[in-house]
């Protein structure tokens, strides 16, 4: 193993196909037109000295180090800003250039500290490298005089000197080391798109400044790390590097946070992780990252992490630490006796969307092959199950149709029920980049998300619909397109079922679906909706990106179908730049669905009722598979309350915090006799558990994650599991304790089994992933290199199916008792239930859930910003602090659900999507009133949680 050094070509690649040939130092090189001389030289293997250039951002031409001579041209142009031309003859090293570069370097170093030996960037400093490259031997100007380096000039304080800014928890800004190359400023603009940094002052006064001379933490900085990565010196440095030192080897792996699935280099020193650096060859993130993946990995070593198995007979006892053998035999005996007493269907599993494909596959195999039932479900139930159902019906398969690169070819984007800059930040940055290039944006969301108006990006249309009216709005968009004749008839005739389309057209043309008719209950101005529909239908490549604001409704599946209708209607399927793109919540939620986590389908989305599919697994596993669908998560909890479901193995999920109607979840868990939680921490669900099996982090195991673009990315082990076993090994131990005879010794063997049984994974092997870096399924003989875009020549199901989408108002309605509508979402710095991010310094950005409320609603209730308020629905009540903002419309309130103390899901109800039982998180009728502090429930809950987390430690063996 070694430290992976990615080549920095200095300027971004040119996308043109036309090539030109030039000569650099006598070597001929052929590159695309538009390439810089600097990049062309690097392609030829000749590195021109540079400081302000790096290939993540556009050329700037400020440092004057990359000068070259070009035959027939006067002067010494900078190679980063000079495009290549056919027949150009370039010299990168001449007497003149040597002298110039050394002179420039001498000036740089005259205002730079000479503490290289004790500097955190020692060994990883481009300034140091360039000083060496140009042969700098002397600084004739000395180090006295005007400078930014010394705290004092003689007996006077040096007013140019600025102290180090250590306000950001993850990196420091040391102005004394800054050479003002502005790479950080440009990375913040061009890569991240936040524009938090600028250069203040002029000439010798120039300094990098977050915002208006603020510190990093108080500025708009979102801590994505792009500036730190871009910095050629120690000016911006990870605190972990300052503390530990430079890494010595690195391993490419995949982030375990959101569904974007960014590739990172885990840079290591021995088994100690020094830093995570986004990998430029990562096809999802293209070298970019967000604060979570880049920095928030400290939870892996957090003191709360449980490393030993624990058991207890009843949940009011303290936990007892035991050996793995004891824990597993205790568990296996309990599960077996439950099946004996209550039947084989009395137990089940929940697979994890945070674990690997291989681990998920084994957990569903455990229930199907060892427990002998289909009681398996996963957190996709509560997020994207309607995507599976809706897209399955319309297109024939249930995944996003594009890769993330596709957005670079998009002309009009609809973002509906998603907040990419918070929930999927790296995709959000890629989207913003395209919008700055001129693509148009339509946002459909009850809340004014950041994308509606953010530096250099503004939505053409924001349709602030009332929560729960998605179907009406999407159908009204189709109404305008059909009645105004803006549909792509050629596409529909060729690719879709024409008869079904005509039925659909008749349905959608009805006046009652017009924006004028729906405005009364959607709250979306008709004129704005018409303009948005026209823009989407006529603006070129149209792509729809959506999130849980679409799916988590009573009509979630119907909205997904409406989205599919809209894409087909406008011919926006089957090529780059278009498509239907569900933004998946968790790192491997796509994979957990692919791996057969749902109770009705085996891996590869094939229903358990199909004998030919069961036969594949039955012959391989030597068992009989139940042809009946199993219980979904909400059904499991109902059955538990009814007394017919008694035991559950939950891998890497915290259903008590994440699932709706907490009281009901708690009642279900409390009714079970054996709850097994397999996790990193004693999460909220573990308060009701009888067995705790310690889990391993993504840094501690091999496997694969599949991201929202169907990309199968490798997860690579960089350190030994602190708990002793990778999660797939724990599941295997449990299966074997139950009498199975599994003998996997590496996750690659599980992937072999997946490939052998699942057609869309047929050609996936670890060798292929090693060779290609990643592949997008389907990956089989028909698509040996995977499939970046789906439905290219035809839909998976044959003809695309238009489905009538009648709007039905949810039963969850406002009334005198509960006059406001609550909707929920995420924030950038926290992730899901917060189990990981709350255990990192990310909490400095968000240490509590707040209730966003419109000033009008707040005033009526006498609520001031920051006041504690009581938030009540028919399901329950909680309290949290108010945040008064006009981001939400009057009548709508909003909160996040990252903190267990808030328990936002005490409020949400048991209403769910008609097709999939996906809970209706996004619409709850509530009342908000002033409050003095925590509710009785919160106080009781905290006490109960404290009691439930007591541990009796095992005596150390003599």
């Amino acid at each position, binding site marked *: 193993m070694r430290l992976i050094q990615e080549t920095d070509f200095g300027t971004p690649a040119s996308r043109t196909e036309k090539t030109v040939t030039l000569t650099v130092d006598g070597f001929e090189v052929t590159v695309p037109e538009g390439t810089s001389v600097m990049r062309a030289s690097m392609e030829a293997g000749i590195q021109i000295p540079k400081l302000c250039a790096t290939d993540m951002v556009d050329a700037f031409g400020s440092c004057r180090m990359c000068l070259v001579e070009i035959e027939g041209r006067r002067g010494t142009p900078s190679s980063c800003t000079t495009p290549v031309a056919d027949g150009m003859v370039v010299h990168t090293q001449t007497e003149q250039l040597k002298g110039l570069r050394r002179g420039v370097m001498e000036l740089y170093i005259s205002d730079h500290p000479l503490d290289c030996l004790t500097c955190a960037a020692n060994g990883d400093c481009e300034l140091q490298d360039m000083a060496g490259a140009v042969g700098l031997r002397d600084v004739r100007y000395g180090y006295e005089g005007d400078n930014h380096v010394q705290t004092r000039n003689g007996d006077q304080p040096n007013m140019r000197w600025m102290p180090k800014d250590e306000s950001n928890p993850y990196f420091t800004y040391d102005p004394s080391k800054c050479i003002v190359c502005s790479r950080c400023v440009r990375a913040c603009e061009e890569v991240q798109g936040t524009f938090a940094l600028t250069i203040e002052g002029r000439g010798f006064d120039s300094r990098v400044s977050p915002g208006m001379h603020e510190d990093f933490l108080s500025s708009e900085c979102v801590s994505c790390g792009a500036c730190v990565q871009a910095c050629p010196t120690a000016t911006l440095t990870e605190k972990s590097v300052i503390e530990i030192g430079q890494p010595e080897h690195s391993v490419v792996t995949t982030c375990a946070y959101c569904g974007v699935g960014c590739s990172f280099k885990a840079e290591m020193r021995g088994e100690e992780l020094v830093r995570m650096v986004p990998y430029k060859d990562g096809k999802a993130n293209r070298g970019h990252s967000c604060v979570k993946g880049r920095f928030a990995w400290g939870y892996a070593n957090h003191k709360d992490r449980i490393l030993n198995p624990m058991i207890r007979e009843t949940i009011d006892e303290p936990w007892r630490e035991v050996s793995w053998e004891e824990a597993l035999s205790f568990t296996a005996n309990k599960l077996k006796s439950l099946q004996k007493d*209550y*039947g084989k*269907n*009395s137990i089940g599993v929940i697979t994890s969307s945070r674990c690997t494909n291989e681990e998920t596959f084994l957990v569903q195999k455990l229930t199907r092959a060892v427990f002998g039932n289909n*009681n398996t479900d996963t957190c996709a139930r509560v997020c994207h199950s309607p995507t599976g159902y809706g897209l399955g019906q319309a297109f024939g398969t249930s995944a996003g149709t594009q890769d993330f690169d596709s957005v670079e070819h998009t002309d009009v984007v609809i973002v509906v029920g998603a907040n990419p800059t918070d929930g999927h930040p790296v995709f959000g940055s890629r989207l913003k980049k395209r919008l700055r290039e001129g693509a148009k944006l339509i946002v459909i969301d009850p809340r004014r998300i950041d994308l509606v108006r953010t530096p250099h990006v503004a939505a053409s249309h924001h349709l602030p619909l009332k929560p729960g009216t998605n179907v009406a709005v999407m159908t009204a968009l189709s109404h305008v397109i059909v009645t105004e004749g803006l549909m792509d008839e050629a596409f529909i005739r060729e690719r879709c079922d024409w008869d079904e389309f005509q039925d659909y057209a008749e*349905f959608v043309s009805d006046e009652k679906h017009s924006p004028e008719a729906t405005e009364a209950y959607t709250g979306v101005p008709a004129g704005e909706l018409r303009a948005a529909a026209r823009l989407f239908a006529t603006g070129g490549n149209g792509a729809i990106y959506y999130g849980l604001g679409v799916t988590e409704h*009573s009509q979630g*599946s*119907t909205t997904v179908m409406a989205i599919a209708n809209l894409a087909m209607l406008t011919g926006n399927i089957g090529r780059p730049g278009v498509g239907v793109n569900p933004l998946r919540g968790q790192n491997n939620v796509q994979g957990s669905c692919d791996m057969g986590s749902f*109770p*009705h389908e085996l891996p590869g989305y094939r*229903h358990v*009722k199909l004998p030919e599919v069961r036969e594949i697994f039955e012959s391989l596993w030597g068992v009989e598979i139940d042809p*009946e*669908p*199993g*219980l*979904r998560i909400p*059904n499991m909890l*109902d*059955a538990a*309350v*009814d007394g*017919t479901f008694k035991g559950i193995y939950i891998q890497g999920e915290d259903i008590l915090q994440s699932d709706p109607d907490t009281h009901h979840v708690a009642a279900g868990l409390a009714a079970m006799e054996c709850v097994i939680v397999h996790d990193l921490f004693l999460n909220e669900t573990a308060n009701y558990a009888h067995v705790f099996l310690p889990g391993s982090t993504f840094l501690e195991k091999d496997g694969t994650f599949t991201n929202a673009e169907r990309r199968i990315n490798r997860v690579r082990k960089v350190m030994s599991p602190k708990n002793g076993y990778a999660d797939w090994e724990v599941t295997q131990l449990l299966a074997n304790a139950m009498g199975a005879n599994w003998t996997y010794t590496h996750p690659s063997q599980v992937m072999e089994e997946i490939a052998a049984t699942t057609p869309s994974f047929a050609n996936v092997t670890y060798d292929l992933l090693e060779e290609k870096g990643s592949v997008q399924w389907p990956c089989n003989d028909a698509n040996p290199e995977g499939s970046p875009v789906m439905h290219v020549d035809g839909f998976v199901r044959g003809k695309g199916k238009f489905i*009538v989408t*009648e709007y*039905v108002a949810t*039963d969850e309605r406002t009334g005198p008792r509960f006059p406001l509508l609550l909707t929920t979402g995420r924030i950038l710095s926290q992730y899901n239930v917060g189990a990981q991010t709350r255990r990192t310094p990310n909490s400095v950005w968000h240490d509590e859930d707040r209730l966003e409320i419109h000033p009008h609603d707040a005033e009526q209730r006498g609520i001031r910003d920051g006041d504690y308020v009581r938030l009540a629905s028919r399901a329950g009540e909680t309290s949290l602090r108010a945040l008064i903002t006009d981001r939400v419309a009057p009548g709508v309130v909003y909160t996040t659900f990252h903190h267990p103390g808030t328990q936002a899901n005490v409020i949400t109800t*048991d209403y*769910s999507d*008609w*097709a*999939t*039982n996906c809970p209706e998180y996004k619409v709850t009728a509530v009342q908000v009133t002033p409050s003095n502090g925590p509710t009785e429930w919160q106080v009781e809950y905290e006490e109960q949680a404290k009691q439930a987390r007591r541990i009796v430690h095992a005596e150390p063996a003599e």
Partner: protein
Amino acid sequence: MSPDKLVRMANQIATFFRSKPHDEGVAGVADHINNFWEPRMRAQLFDLYAQGGEGLDALVIEARDKIRPVTQSA
């Protein structure tokens, strides 16, 4: 699960299929329940039918004969 909740879930399915031609709608409701409802839930639905099907949507009532009987016990 409470009978009210089961009735609500069944009726939600019926509501979606109401926009289909009638026979297709009946078949759609039955298929959906057959594909996604675990035997315990179907058994409870048959109990409701046996008690007269109070509160159930007409489409759900009509789908009765197309819903797969429950053979195994929980």
